[in-house]
């Protein structure tokens, strides 16, 4: 991804979501967030009056015990879930104001997802898995192919394009998932326990890759993890406990 | 053996899939039950028409009364032979010579030959009500002998123009028959007939001097063979005698056979579909419970116990479908079904007639579908390696 052209293209692509406001220092800003789930009739407060600023270009790790609300926080930032109260501004866009449909589009342009279980489609090849998010754009076949190749080269799997997930190792699967996360050239990558299912060596490879994405391609990375080794590689480590940041 | 409650719970967990398969089986059972009920109905209608102690005499070689014709002069010796034929209290022989014709009739609600069918008319002598003592007037009265009054079977009202109680229709041009009564004949084919005076029918249909058939009540059913020999011994008469019940049975064979054949072809094709549906559901059950199967195997249950357990589950599901199917099919017993009798070209009304055989047959059929449809999934489950199964 040495050719940084997609960067320029991205600016055009953003269309309606581009705001004229001056570049904010924080690319993600959460203010006064409450999140309450209902277990039957009983409310369960997962997050309470939470504020969070994630500066542009940072690599943050979020740690905390099970049930502390890590995944909920991640889902809110990624626009998968909505807060009970409070505002979330990501890349200058108040995502609470978007409809479900617009939010889905916004997600496909702004957020790259990395899951613990990779979540590749077993019936599609590595290249087709990476191409999946591009099907939501208006890019032509040739352009999609080019971007898929760039993304797979960036994760070092250009020679595995036609392999199916079950023909790849866990580490390789996760790298395909990372290629899928960056193929749209999103501003932010959210990763939910990306090394949770991997052995030490593969986990190191994946973390090195994330570092590279952060340093060389200026992606903001927000990673939820249990793994202290993984957290070490981040520039900022936050701890969440009982719905509040420490 | 794996407890059956385990299977019941498992079926209830995947409600939609279970219900889809169950309803599929039920539909097939409805189809097979209907075919069974209709062939029962046909058999009963035509069988109750015939009695073992009654002989029917027609011209040699005739298949049906309508095609037969006997000179009146030839029948007297046969009808009144006291060695064979029963008599009423006043000493009259219990025998009738009748004319059977079919007449074109407009279907109810149409006129002018737009939609026509054939209806049987039977010309009967006055003593028919004594010979056929199981036929009863249920509305109106008996027709006056020697007039153009007629009585109609209770399956007829509402089906043909003018063939209604209190109404009239043309026997032929300018000869109008008045419907003065409706009779019940125990669900037999007579209920689809019009009964008119024998002389009226003779005149209206140009049948002077002949009858179609002669029926006599025998002293006892065992007299039939001797009576038959007596009737057929005189070759110059050219007559033959049959038991009335076997005469109707022969007419039934073709029709009931056709209904059964069509019914079973469809039931077979549909059952393939339903069994495949059951197999799909059971395969999903196996796939979703491979961990449980592994655990059961680890606990010491044999492959056979696993196979049996899934088979039992499939059979339970299909049996429930069978019960549902039977419950859906039984109310059809109230439906009337007009069909053409191939032997006479006249329409006869049949009913869907449920029997114990229908119900047992349907449930056995459903069970078989459960076994066939469930076997391969159950086989697959029994082949799961416990270690592999628990890992996934």
């Amino acid at each position, binding site marked *: 991804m040495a050719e940084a052209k997609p960067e320029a293209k991205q600016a055009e692509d953003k269309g309606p979501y581009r705001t004229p406001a001056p570049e904010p220092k924080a690319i993600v800003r959460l203010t006064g967030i409450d999140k309450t789930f209902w277990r039957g009739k009983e409310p369960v407060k997962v997050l309470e009056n939470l504020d969070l600023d994630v500066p542009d270009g940072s690599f943050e790790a979020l740690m905390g015990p099970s049930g502390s609300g890590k995944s909920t926080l991640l889902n809110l930032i990624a626009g998968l879930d909505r807060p009970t109260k409070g505002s979330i501004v990501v890349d200058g866009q108040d995502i609470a104001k978007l409809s479900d449909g617009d939010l889905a589009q916004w997600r496909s342009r702004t957020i790259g997802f990395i899951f613990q279980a990779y979540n590749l489609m077993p019936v599609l090849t590595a290249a087709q898995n990476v191409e999946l998010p591009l*099907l939501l754009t208006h890019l032509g076949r040739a352009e999609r192919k080019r971007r898929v190749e760039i993304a797979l080269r960036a994760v070092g799997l250009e020679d595995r394009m036609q392999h199916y997930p079950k023909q790849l190792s866990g580490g390789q699967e996760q790298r395909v998932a990372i290629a899928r996360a960056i193929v749209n050239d999103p501003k932010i990558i959210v990763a939910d326990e990306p090394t949770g299912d991997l052995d030490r060596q593969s986990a190191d490879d994946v973390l090195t890759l994330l570092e590279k994405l952060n340093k060389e391609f200026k992606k903001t990375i927000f990673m939820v993890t249990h793994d202290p080794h993984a957290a070490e590689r981040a520039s900022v480590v936050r701890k969440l406990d009982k719905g509040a940041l420490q | 053996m794996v407890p059956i409650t385990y299977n019941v719970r498992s079926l209830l967990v995947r409600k939609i899939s279970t219900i889809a398969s169950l309803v599929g089986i039920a539909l097939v059972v409805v189809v097979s039950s209907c075919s069974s009920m209709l062939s029962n109905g046909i058999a009963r209608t035509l069988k109750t028409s015939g009695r073992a102690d009654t002989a029917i005499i027609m011209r040699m070689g005739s298949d049906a009364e309508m*095609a037969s014709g006997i000179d009146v002069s030839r029948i007297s010796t046969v009808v009144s032979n006291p060695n064979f034929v029963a008599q009423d209290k006043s000493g009259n022989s219990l025998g009738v010579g009748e004319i059977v*014709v*079919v007449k*074109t009739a407009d279907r109810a609600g149409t006129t002018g030959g737009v939609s026509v069918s054939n209806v049987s008319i039977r010309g009967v002598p006055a003593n028919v009500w004594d010979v056929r003592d199981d036929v009863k007037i249920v509305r109106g009265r008996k027709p006056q002998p020697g007039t153009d009054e007629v009585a109609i079977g209770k399956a007829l009202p509402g089906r043909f123009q003018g063939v209604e109680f209190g109404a009239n229709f043309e026997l032929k041009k300018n000869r109008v028959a008045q419907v003065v009564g409706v009779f019940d004949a125990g669900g037999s084919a007579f209920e689809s007939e019009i009964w008119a005076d024998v002389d009226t029918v003779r005149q209206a249909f140009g049948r002077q001097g002949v009858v179609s058939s002669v029926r006599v009540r025998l002293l006892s059913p065992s007299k039939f063979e001797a009576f038959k020999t007596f009737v057929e011994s005189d070759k110059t008469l050219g007559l033959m005698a049959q038991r009335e019940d076997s005469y109707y049975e022969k007419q039934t064979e073709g029709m009931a056979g056709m209904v059964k054949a069509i019914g079973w072809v469809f039931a077979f*094709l549909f059952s393939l*579909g*339903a069994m495949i549906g059951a197999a799909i559901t059971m395969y999903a059950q196996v796939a979703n419970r491979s961990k449980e199967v592994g655990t059961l195997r680890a606990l010491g249950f044999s492959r056979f116990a696993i196979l049996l357990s899934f088979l039992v589950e499939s059979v339970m599901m299909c049996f429930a479908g069978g019960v549902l199917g039977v419950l859906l099919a039984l109310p059809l017993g109230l439906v009337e079904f007009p069909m053409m009798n191939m032997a006479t070209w006249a329409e006869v009304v049949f009913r869907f007639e449920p029997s114990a055989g229908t119900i047992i047959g349907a449930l056995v059929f459903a069970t078989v579908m459960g076994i066939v449809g469930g076997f391969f999934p159950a086989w697959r489950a029994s082949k799961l390696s416990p270690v592999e199964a628990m890992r996934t």
Partner: protein
Amino acid sequence: MTILTLAARNLTRNKTRVVLTVLGVGVAVLAFMLIRVVVWAWSMGGEVAAKDRIGTRDKITFVNRLPLRYAQDLKDAAAPLGVTHVTYMDWFGGKDPRNDSLFFGAFAVDHATFLDVYNELSISPEARERWKSDPQAALVGKNLAKKLQVKEGDKITLISPIYPGDWEFHVAAVYRSTAKSFDESSFIFRWDYLNNNKALPASQKDRIGWLAAKLTDPGRSAEISKAIDKAFDDRDQQTLSMSERDLNTSFVGMVAAVLQILNIASFVILLILGLILGNTIAMGVRERTYEHGVLRALGFMPRHITMFVVAEALFIGALGGAFGLALAYALVGAIGPRVVEDFGAMFPFFEITPPSALVGFGLALLAGLISSLIPSYRASRLEVVNALRRIG
């Protein structure tokens, strides 16, 4: 790759289930096609019948025969209206004594005029000579000749339930028919041979079953039929005339109840189709809930998920439909010619028409669409966060 690629690839996800579903849909489509073939063949019975021939019979009942002189009277009355030829015939009800379960039509016809009215019968000039000169000559349809095992020049004896005795015929020709309006399974012989028989009672002499008239203008058949019936209105026996086509159509009307049953069966098939497909689709959706969550997280919209599910259902429906059509073409191709040969009078055709094939295929697609509506709706209503929480 397009979005549809993923839908198509998902078919390989659970091969057993997809194969079973395609089989199930295929069998259902096969059953549907068979019903369509029968219904179509029946209704075509009316379509192929000649429009340019009018049949005239006794008004009251087809059992009554007409006086011979009606033939000349009809010709006199109808000639000015454009009737070129008139012939007459009678039903013989012939049976082969060697095989009395073989059913075929045997007709006594006027040899002088029959081939003018039924000019679709094709025989050689030599056979025509034999037909004219030999009173015992008979024309046997190609298919019937095979079953009776006779060839030109053979002698054959038939019996009849209506005309007692043994009847010997000489096969003058094995005829072929150049049109579907006359089948190749009939036995035709000379009416004079029947009428001149010494054993025939006087009351049955010079009687004919019905008349057939050939028109120059088929468009006038209704008008001419009326004119004929009017000409006989004041006679002892009134007549009922209609074109062969109307006659066949009214026959179809008599089996309306059977057609109705077949239509209900079609509906049951649709239900079974829907159940099999719906079960499969619903299972697939449930199993892929998490995956749909992932797709939604990647930015796919609910409508995309709906599309995945519907496209998959349509794929399976299309595969099953194609499979069912292939089965139906193979089966009907195999038995069709035999059915036409054996039951040509009832089923002049027994084949699949392109429109009915389209309907069958469309039905499979429709079932796919309908059965995917609820699962796809539920899949699209998915809360992404909940879907992703299901496992892991």
